[in-house]
């Protein structure tokens, strides 16, 4: 491959091109500021969704409270007589004692 004169020329071309300084500090001036501006604007784009999500929380909380009240109000309620419950407990104890032969 090295015998080809055009290969030599190509290698010389590469060698010369490598010396070109591609970084120009003047062109990169303020580059950090531009990058940070884009990063901040990306964040700002993401924020409205989060804000919107947070703003819906009171609506959902109100809905849960309303549903709770509505379910509570629509179900029939029974008065619980604690003395009756105590009596039932006593009867079970007497029955248990009788069956056990005490």
């Amino acid at each position, binding site marked *: 491959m090295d015998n*080809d*004169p*055009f*290969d*030599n*020329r*190509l290698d*010389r*071309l*590469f060698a*010369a*091109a*490598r*010396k*070109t300084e*591609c*970084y*120009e500090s003047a*062109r*990169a001036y303020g*580059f*950090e500021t*531009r*990058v*940070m501006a*884009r*990063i901040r604007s*990306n964040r700002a784009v993401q924020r409205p969704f989060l804000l919107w999500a947070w703003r819906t929380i009171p609506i959902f909380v109100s809905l849960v409270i309303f549903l709770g009240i509505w379910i509570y109000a629509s179900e029939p309620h029974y008065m619980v007589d604690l003395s009756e419950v105590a009596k039932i407990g006593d009867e079970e104890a007497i029955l248990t004692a009788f069956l056990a032969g005490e």
Partner: protein
Amino acid sequence: MTVPEEVPNDERLIAAILSGDDEAFVELVRRYKRKVFSIAARFVRNHDELDDVCQEIFIKVYQNLRKYRGDAPLEHWVSKIAVNACYDALRKRRRTEDEVPLDDVAFALRDPSSDEMPSREAWEILRHALAKLRPEERMVITLLNLEEKSVREVSALTGWSEAKVKVRAFRARKELKRILEDNHGQ
């Protein structure tokens, strides 16, 4: 006597960025922009595109910093992101870039015995010839012959196997020679 300001190393810089310190990221950009600009400048058409591509690269660095494992120096990791972003830009652009025929570019491939060619002129010749290559050919020949990376380094940067890098380099060089020969004759 002035006390030199402590320069945070890359690990501390990353930790600061991940904890939300924007100034730390500015420092990271300042530290690696020369490297990134040098890589991207080999693939773009003009200064506006260079600025855009470099911004994209640093935004990717920012977004993916949590994925950096520290098993390679940060410079290598940033370079890899830069190379991949440039390759994506090349693929999007395809070969529509070079509207200017190579004949119209003022240059001459001088005789090997002649004086050294000016670097800017050499780069302009190559830039126009490289624009006619396929993205993968342009990528591989740029990294090998202009950035002077080894086959192994190119393989690591691009994610291609070393064998694929060699094959693509061979084809790219052959194609580049054909393009230059067609435009210059012998």
